[in-house]
């Protein structure tokens, strides 16, 4: 019933969905098996347990509820034996520890560094967690987690979780805060508008959904696993100690590169050996030294790693016997051609006959290891190849795609949306209206005009620039909200906007003008010029508002 290496730590008689059964807590998961059943119907891996609830002391039934990370997935177990409470407490304690450990890990720390002196005299004890090499909180979990997940990293799932908002409101608030922290202009605008009570927080962010989405996506995105071929180098400390730092990523890499190590790891850690011990023995073993320099005869025997060494050599010595070629793309299936006609009566000459010479004995296992490692890296990032689901039409499209020549086909024009300007003359006139009046007088060199403009532009007094800018931005934003709320159902908002516009015009602009005038007339002129477009806009808006019939506001009781 259990997987290899899985052991039961605690169990209790429990009812789930009105059916009697036994709840098991193993070193991998929480599982419930119905009475008379052969396999667990409920199986929650350690990493999937989000939170647990227990019924209170003295309650009628002794229940425990476990919630998963998946939204709305909860399991309720009711313990029914004589020792129900004890059983529940034991399991509760184990689950608590798991959740606690996970929280600890997520907040940093968790690297393992193994000290060892080269040589059979044995090293000093391992010192865990001394150097934390974790870069950020969103690094892929613990060494056990990715291995147990068996080729499903938290990467893609994590991304999807965040963007869909399934993480809830907290993620959204976080993103908003981060955006404001990054973008000064946005935060100024935010302060001006929201804190100044012109628009509500939600209204502010409603028009900026794409910004939020992008930020969330960027934050959620995890760096993919590096495909680099691992070359573990020790860090030589001062006291002649050879130190190897093992982060979860490194452990994951080693396990990917050498599946026999992975098997040994699964088997022995953490039940029979601690992590530190396991890796200490690894670095002293023949396995490690063989893969480093090709030699390695004077290392001590080590039953775990010698077995791993044997397995590894066995695997890469020769091509695997039975390979299923069913779900690879037919266009790259070389075996169909090999078996297309009668076997050739020829053997190829020495140079094309691979795998025979002394060099090939070294190279072939390496080549096989490359191919397999690359496959594993690929599978762990994009998932294993999904076999075709029955219909062969999917397969045919591969052949179709490879024969059709796209450049010989007629390119289809992408359907465009035509811009529907009702009176084109007026539009173009309004665009270029002022240009007509400002003809360059004869005799004046355009270059001079431009130089003058540049001088004006750069030497412009920018004393009150910031305030002017923020006022301008705030005014425009409110104008936008104003025009967006002209429909009937946004009447109350509309009214609010009108109020805000009036307030901006009467208070903020005026105060700016006063400040500007106190600094001199040309400052005042400049300020007037800067704020003119916005004031025009406000004027137009208010005129529009006045000309409309006042909408009835129904007060809710």
């Amino acid at each position, binding site marked *: 019933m259990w997987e290899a290496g899985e052991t039961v730590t605690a169990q209790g008689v429990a009812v789930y969905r009105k059916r009697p059964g036994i709840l098991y807590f193993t070193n991998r998961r929480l599982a419930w098996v119905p009475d008379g059943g052969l396999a667990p119907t409920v199986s929650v891996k350690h990493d999937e347990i989000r939170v647990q609830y227990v019924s209170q002391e003295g309650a009628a039934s002794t229940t425990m509820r476990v919630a998963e990370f998946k939204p709305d997935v909860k399991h309720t177990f009711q313990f029914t034996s004589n020792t129900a409470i004890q059983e529940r407490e034991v399991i509760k304690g184990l689950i608590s520890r798991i959740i606690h450990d996970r929280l600890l890990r997520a907040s940093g720390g968790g690297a393992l560094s193994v000290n060892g002196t080269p040589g059979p005299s044995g090293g000093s004890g391992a010192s865990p967690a001394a150097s934390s090499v974790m870069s950020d909180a969103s690094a892929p979990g613990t060494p056990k987690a990715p291995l147990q997940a068996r080729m499903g990293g938290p990467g893609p799932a994590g991304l999807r979780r965040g963007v869909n908002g399934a993480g809830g409101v907290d993620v959204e608030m976080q993103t908003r805060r981060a955006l404001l922290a990054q973008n000064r202009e946005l935060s100024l605008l935010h302060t001006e508008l929201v804190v100044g009570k012109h628009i509500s927080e939600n209204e502010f962010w409603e028009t900026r959904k794409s910004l939020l989405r992008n930020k969330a996506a960027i934050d959620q995105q995890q760096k993919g696993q*590096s*495909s*680099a*071929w691992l*070359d573990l180098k020790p860090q030589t400390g001062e006291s002649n100690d050879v130190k190897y730092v093992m982060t979860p990523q490194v452990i994951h890499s080693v396990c990917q590169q050498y599946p026999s190590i992975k098997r040994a790891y699964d088997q022995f850690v953490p039940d029979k050996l601690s992590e530190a011990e396991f890796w200490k023995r690894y670095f002293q073993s023949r396995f490690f030294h063989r893969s480093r320099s090709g030699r390695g005869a004077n290392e001590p025997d080590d039953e775990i790693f010698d077995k791993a060494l044997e397995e590894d050599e066995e695997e890469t010595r020769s*091509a695997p016997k039975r*390979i299923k*070629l069913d779900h*690879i*793309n*037919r*266009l*790259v*299936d*070389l*075996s*169909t*051609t*090999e*078996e*297309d*006609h*009668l*076997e*050739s*009566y*020829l053997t190829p*000459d*020495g*140079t*094309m*006959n*691979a*795998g025979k010479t002394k*060099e090939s004995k*070294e*190279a072939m296992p*390496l*080549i*096989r290891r490359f*191919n397999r490692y*690359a*496959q594993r*890296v*690929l599978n762990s990032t*994009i998932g294993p*190849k999904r076999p075709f689901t029955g219909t*062969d039409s999917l397969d045919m499209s591969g*052949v*179709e795609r*490879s*024969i*059709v*020549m*796209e*450049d*010989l*086909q*007629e*390119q289809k024009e992408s359907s465009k949306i035509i811009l529907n300007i009702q009176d084109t003359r007026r539009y173009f006139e309004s665009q270029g209206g002022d240009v007509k009046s400002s003809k360059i007088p004869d005799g004046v060199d355009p270059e001079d005009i431009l130089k003058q403009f540049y001088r004006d532009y750069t030497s412009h007094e920018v004393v009150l620039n910031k305030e002017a800018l923020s006022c301008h931005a705030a005014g425009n934003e409110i104008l936008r909200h104003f025009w967006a709320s002209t429909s009937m159902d946004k009447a109350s908002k509309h009214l609010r906007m009108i109020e805000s516009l009036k307030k901006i015009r009467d208070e903020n602009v005026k105060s700016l003008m006063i400040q500007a005038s106190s600094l001199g007339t040309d400052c005042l002129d400049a300020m007037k010029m800067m704020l003119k477009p916005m004031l025009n806009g406000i004027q137009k808006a208010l005129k529009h508002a006045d000309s409309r019939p006042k909408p009835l506001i129904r007060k809710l009781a």
Partner: protein
Amino acid sequence: MLFHIDDLPVYFPYDRIYPEQYAYMCSLKQTLDAQGHGVLEMPSGTGKTVSLLSLIVSYQQHYPEKRKLIYCSRTVPEIEKALAELKRLVEYRKSCGLNETILGLGLTSRRNLCLHPSVSKEKKGKVVDARCHNLTAPWIREAEQAGQDIETCSFYEELERGDVRELVPDAIYTLDDIKELGKVKKTCPYYMARRLLSHANVIIYSYHYMLDPKIADLISKELSKDSIVVFDEAHNIDNVCIDSLSLDIMRPTLEASSKSIAQLSERIETMKQQGSEKLKNEYEKLVQGLQDTLAARDEESIMANPALPDDLLHEAVPGNIRKAEHFVAFLKRFNEYLKTRLRVLNVTAETPSSFLRHLKEITFIERKPLQFCSERLSLLTRTLELNNLDDLSSLQRVAALATLVATYDKGFMLVLEPYESENATVPNPILRFACLDAAIAIKPVFERFSSVIITSGTLSPLDMYPKILDFKATVQESYPMTLTRNCFLPMVITRGSDQVAISSKFEVRNDPAVVRNFGNILIEFGKIVPDGIVAFFPSYLYMESIIAMWHEMGILTEAWKTKLIFVETPDSAETSIALDNYRRACENGRGAILLAVARGKVSEGIDFDHHYGRAVVMFGIPYQYTESRILKARLEFLRDEHRVRENDFLTFDALRHAAQCLGRVLRGKTDYGLMVFADRRYARQDKRSKLPKWINQYITDTSVNLSTDMGIAIAKKFLRSMAQPLETQAQMGVSLWTLDDVLARQKAQKEKLERVGGVHQQLQQQYGAAEAQRMMQARASGDVYMEVD
């Protein structure tokens, strides 16, 4: 689009056409009209297959003779693609309103087509064939019909019950389609396809079904003489011809055939004791010289004759091997002789006749009975009603050697090599019967069929093929590639950044500096080229040793940082999976490097277009193993017979493989790729001149003698410019034609012809015919000024 070449309406299934495709189709028509043979070189990636098929199908359907088209290709994926093209073409023709019935299908081995639930699970073709034979042999079927409890193949039986013509409506069947049809009608797809060959309008299969005597006689016997035969991707066809008449024997084969001989003896004894009539019957027929009646119409026969049909003797089987037990004894003597020959520890090379002389001295075996060996063996297996024919494969091989060595003399030789390689200490003897003359196997094809077309992307120099295959080509053309924007960049890197020259030449190939420079090329291109890179080596041995050295130098670790690495292995299943993963890595964006061998399975038929191959690197020059005695004998033969110089041939052979590898990276003119020749020797004119025209025209003087860093700089610039989209408008009229362009070109040509014709007439009138001819020629070659009227 629809246009006319002379009076032939050609339906082309696209709206646009490349100028090269149009020119290609014109040459094709010329060849077919002249009922002669053609050698046509068309650049890679310009839609050669679709042009070929659309012209020939139009030709076939237009003229009343309805000449059959036999299209031969090398690999099964290529066959599948060609069938898919054909299907698409015929659908297009239908959509244009043509009302025609075309039957087109492909043929491959039983292993690829079998539907039987248990037999189809076998991976080896040999085993599938044998198990199929076990279920469908005539005596098995007779026994089953007589009521015995013996297993037969339901799919075969179902097929036998019906008429295959009624079963299969006229249409184009890809390999999948015919299997589907078989599943629906519960009939055997393989035999359906085989039986329909004589009725089909278009047949697509591998070269071997046309060239290899062992198969060709069974399959292609009944194809009519005016059929059009096309060999596509035929740059390697001379090697296919040579291989189909060559044979190797090693000690394990002889051991196995001894066992088979013993088994045969036992079986004969058993049958005699049972008083079977069959053996007597066989003897009678053989005495009367009626062995053909014994063979009858036996399509299940899997043991065909290894010699060409025309070279078979149609006489009575010689007396000393008519009786079954005499024949088996005969085989035993021959087998033992071969065993003793294989014990000799020095290299021997001799002609077949000298071999036969020696054989006769020692064993008194004559030539004539040897010639009948294969035939006699298949008769015997039929008479003895033997199952599990794959057990007899070693004996078949020995019998094949006997037949071949007795049938052929000129252009063949036998070599005995006691050691596999120069430095081996343990003897592993191999006796090679080698064909040296490629023309022998293909002669029947050229003689029997009126139009044979040899086409590929790399056939340079064009006149090499008519020479070594010994035929006359009516049309010989090579087409350049018209490009608006250079979509591929061939460059020759001759030295590393440390200025050390790089080469795969034997003397320097293990020099660490050279190896490191090769490695740097890989690393640097890995950094700048997106998606997939394919790197080819001259041989497996070389690739293995370089990989080992690179790993020690840490070069591969560097390369792993930017891309995944996949390597071709001798095992085809493993390599197929590696290829599949390579494609996935390219699609995914992670990118990958594929290390392969220039003469290997990957270079033969796998495409690396678009993102599957953005750069191809050819490390070194893929020469054949020059120390091979067979190769030396072949070169001598070519020198004596066809006056082809040895160096010329070796270079030609190496460069056609290199060009073939590099051409895999393009498909269409909007695809792009880098082609890197990494060897000092490529810079030399004698090497470069042997590359096909369409590659050569784009090798500029600045890209010929580069060091690694110079090459990288040029490549970076190229890749940046390729990333810009190419406007279709820019290509129109130059490298891409619409129907109007085609018609305009035709009009211009017609006018030119008329003008030339008019001038010719004028000159004739003025100066008389002979003088006019001379003047026209001079004018054409530019020796004379044009007369100003």
